[in-house]
């Protein structure tokens, strides 16, 4: 004898079971008096619920809703709303030791750059660039992966039920985190420039392009696979590039293009990096708008 499909009966009574399931259930009902009685109970409950819950008169849409409908937000209001949303995500950065860790890492990089620039006999300008070139993209990779892995964030339960898409909120968090890292790195670069006298274009250009490229890549990998894979791939890639650049410092490269151009980026290199990063970020934002973090979580929970 089959098990009674008790879970299906209330939905059959409500009329929301799919045609296929309903047909299968009807076959079972025709031979099972116990389930027919169960169905009768649910039909009574359904009727009582519908009778108990009369909606009453619907008020007209209020004047302030109508007023809000008449006008779309101006560019300035949109910008303010976006900035407000980004700022509202600051709690994520302030939670735990994230922000102090970023500040300390960049401060250590600045100190190392000043020392390297001061002690280097050969090319102090070049050596002063290395610490932030290495550190800033590294910090960005870790921060992005951290933000992507906070699916366990209790706020995600609520996000699933709000009209704000989870992708928008994650984008806001990423913007804030990368903005803070960029700002700190910029301050660090100015300090190094002041002490070591290195070119600001190199100091900033060396980390800016890789920061944008690798954070976009990490976001995409975290969305498509998971944050662990994203960290692994991005870190491996970035350490490879850094090792190549350091090796090129020691001895001239046999190839036509030496990875040293990353340490001393010309305008064309900067523009190319930012353009490529723009393309990657466009893909990342499209992926985020599909709302993968939450849907993945909900699917896993079912």
């Amino acid at each position, binding site marked *: 004898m089959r098990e009674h499909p008790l879970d299906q009966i209330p939905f059959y009574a409500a009329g929301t079971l799919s045609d296929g399931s309903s047909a299968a259930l009807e076959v079972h009902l025709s031979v099972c008096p116990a389930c027919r009685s169960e169905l009768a109970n649910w039909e009574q409950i359904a009727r009582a619920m519908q009778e108990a819950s009369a909606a009453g008169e619907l008020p007209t849409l209020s004047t302030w809703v109508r007023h809000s409908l008449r006008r779309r937000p101006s560019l300035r209001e949109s910008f303010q709303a976006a900035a407000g949303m980004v700022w509202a995500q600051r709690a994520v950065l302030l939670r735990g030791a994230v922000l102090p860790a970023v500040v300390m890492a960049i401060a250590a990089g600045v100190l190392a750059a000043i020392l390297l620039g001061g002690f280097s006999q050969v090319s102090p300008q070049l050596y002063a660039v290395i610490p932030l070139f290495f550190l800033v993209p590294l910090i960005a990779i870790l921060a992005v992966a951290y933000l992507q892995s906070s699916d366990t964030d209790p706020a995600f*339960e609520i996000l699933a*039920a*709000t009209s704000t898409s989870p992708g928008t909120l994650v984008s806001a968090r990423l913007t804030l985190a990368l903005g803070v890292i960029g700002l700190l790195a910029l301050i660090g670069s100015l300090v190094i420039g002041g002490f070591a006298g290195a070119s600001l274009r190199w100091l900033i250009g060396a980390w800016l392009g890789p920061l944008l490229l690798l954070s976009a890549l990490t976001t995409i990998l975290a969305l498509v696979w998971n944050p662990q894979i994203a960290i692994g791939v991005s870190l491996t890639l970035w350490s490879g590039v850094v090792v190549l650049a350091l090796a090129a410092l020691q001895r001239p490269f046999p190839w036509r293009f030496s990875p040293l151009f990353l340490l001393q980026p010309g305008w064309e290199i900067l523009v190319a990096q930012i353009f490529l990063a723009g393309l990657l970020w466009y893909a990342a934002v499209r992926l985020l708008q599909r709302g993968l973090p939450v849907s993945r979580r*909900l699917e896993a929970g079912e």
Partner: protein
Amino acid sequence: MMGYNILMERRSDLISWSADDPDLSLVRAIARGDARSLEELYSHQGPGILAYLFNRLGDRELAEEILQDVMLAVWQGAGRFRGKSRVRTWMLSIARYKAINAWQRSAPATMQFSDELPDPAPDPSNLATQGDALKELSDALLQLPDHQRETLELVFNHQLSCKEAAQVMGVSPGTVKSRLHRAKASLRKLLDSQEDHHA
């Protein structure tokens, strides 16, 4: 056995709601800035959402106020609605979120959580066998814990599938099923005690 239930569950999941959801085109129009479509959506979904809000909050004025909030959220969020769920499910989710917020603002100290009654063995005999017994059943429904009544309401009054009701309440589909069965068991218990009382 198990296979039957799993098969049924999978099939019911496969129903594609969004494709034939008549309100989806309204939401698309709202996303383009069409205020008249919002009015139309309001007249379709407003009564159900208002009843849902009133049943959760027990305050008609507050329910009406939140309904306006929901409509504003729909206006602002229509562009981000991707049609992966039915419009009704989406709006109920927003309404529930806003109702919880309002409730927490108004009475943070009186919040109560799950107070589910024990689950007695299912009884196959009919809950109410006579016409006037429907009145008793309606009275008993009012005495159910709110999360059980909410589940019944989403399933029977709003015609949500198991998965959709789970989505609105932020619980698993298994919880929806168990709440339904507990609600029925609670009703059985309440009706029995009423009968004893009359006797």
